[in-house]
């Protein structure tokens, strides 16, 4: 993680962190600096805005899964931890668990996906979002990657 921090230290979202010069863990208390999209190694993303998080899967993931024909999502009101299996996406060939990038309480799910799961393919980072979270107090993003680090991750894996 240190390496990717160094590589991305010039990005504005990181600049305030590095100036503050605290532990490498980036806590939600710095949320003003953290309004950004983060990716997991499992190819989910979370867009953090204040105490709200919106979760989806990456363009890389949707491309590789192929046309998604069925979506299973968490219940509104469910409490989830990061890495919990919260849903499932199914294409013709494969069924893939969705693992929550962050902990929190599910506040909303994307109802449109029920009738049109292919929105995940056509608009993975926008209209194809899966669910929203009221983020837990202690949400950390230090295990997550920004877009640039994630792209590099995809190149190398």
């Amino acid at each position, binding site marked *: 993680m240190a390496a990717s921090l160094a590589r991305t230290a010039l990005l504005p979202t990181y600049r305030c962190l590095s100036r503050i010069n605290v532990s490498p863990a980036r806590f939600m208390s710095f949320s003003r600096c953290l309004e950004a999209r983060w990716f997991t190694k499992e190819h989910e993303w979370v867009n953090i805005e204040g105490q709200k998080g919106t979760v989806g899967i990456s363009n890389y993931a949707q491309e590789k899964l192929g046309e998604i024909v069925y979506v299973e999502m968490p219940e509104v009101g469910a409490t989830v931890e990061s890495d919990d299996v919260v849903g499932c996406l199914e294409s013709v060939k494969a069924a*893939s*668990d969705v693992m929550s990038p962050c902990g929190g309480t599910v506040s909303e799910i994307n109802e449109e996906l029920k009738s049109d799961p292919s929105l995940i393919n056509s608009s993975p980072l926008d209209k194809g979002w899966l669910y929203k979270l009221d983020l837990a107090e202690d949400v950390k993003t230090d295990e997550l990657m920004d877009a640039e680090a994630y792209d590099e991750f995809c190149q*190398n894996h």
Partner: protein
Amino acid sequence: MRLVRAGTRNLFTILQTLGVTPASKRLLSQNADLKRTALYDFHLSQGAKMVPFAGWEMPVQYKSGISEEHLHVREHVGIFDVSHMLQTRVVGKDRKAFMESMVVTDIEGLKDNQGTLTVFTNDQGGILDDLIINNTDKDFLYVVSNAGCADTDLAHMKANEAKFQESGKDVKLSVIDTSLVAVQGPGMVSVLQPGLDFDLKTLPFMTTTEGKVFGVEGCRITRCGYTGEDGVEISVPHSGAEKVLTSLLSSSQDSVKMIGLGARDSLRLEAGLCLYGNDIDATTTPIEGNLTWLVSKSRRPKLDFPGAQIIVDQIKNKPSKRRVGFVSSGAPIRGHAKIFSEDGSELIGETTSGCPSPSLKMNVSMGYVKTPFSKNGTKVKIEVRKKMIDAEVSKMPFVPSKYYILK
């Protein structure tokens, strides 16, 4: 994200399964032992994602993806490289008796150039593999069996060959080293006929002939396939395989695309065809596997094939379980899901394979249920991620077959 079926695997592993291993990784030793077909470079040039399959590096899909490839075969023409399958030539005057000693179907009665699907069985009546035996008019049997069973099939046939030869019988088998490509779909005749030196009207479903294909000599064309569509499999010398494919792909008669193993699986599922190792195996008999029609009437009284007594008893007295198809909506059903009675009180079986059907826009699956639950229309529950899904026993094929059968 991670693959549900394998529990602990994450999306990264699925992506590898789907063939997303970058080129640089392909050079690593993990794939060093994998065999490549003569069309390997051609697949890469067509944008194939290659995956390990039965000891081979095979295309799982090309650029357009599984659903699109699937529908292309249903509407136009698709080409599959199936060179990984085991092709065998059996010669000698006792060749038919030799094959009959291992399989449940009447081979002696096959007409010239006629073929049949059949199964190798063991002494318990379990299925060792499914295969196609063609009785060519050139004094040999042309046998095609599964890539996944190639080693055991060959060992099985060799052991039997030794036994036959020891008892003074005349039989000899050899492996045929050619490429094998399947051309499948409603437009097959229109794209292939211009390249042939014979009329496809004279080659009905499950018959075979030698011929020249787009100038390539020494091909064997067999009207069969694994999609439910009209189609052929062409055994073609390695040196001519690419020429046949490029000729077909550039046809002006219909749209022809390369199709990977992903769509091959969903197509055969819609056609109700078994995948060996999933839907049938050494623990299932042809009767349990709903393949009773393979056990020829002429073979039944003789009890002269492996497991005959068990198999014939099951025909008379019904087996305790049967392979059936299911249709459902909601969460797609895959293999290894538990099947319950409609009220959920009784565990009645397990699914063996399934997928969302690209043609039908519903979910299709197959599996084994206790025989009283095997009637078409029986309502059942199938467990997916701890939820009970409503499903109904359905006749197969799920999508009507379009084989070229002379009336």
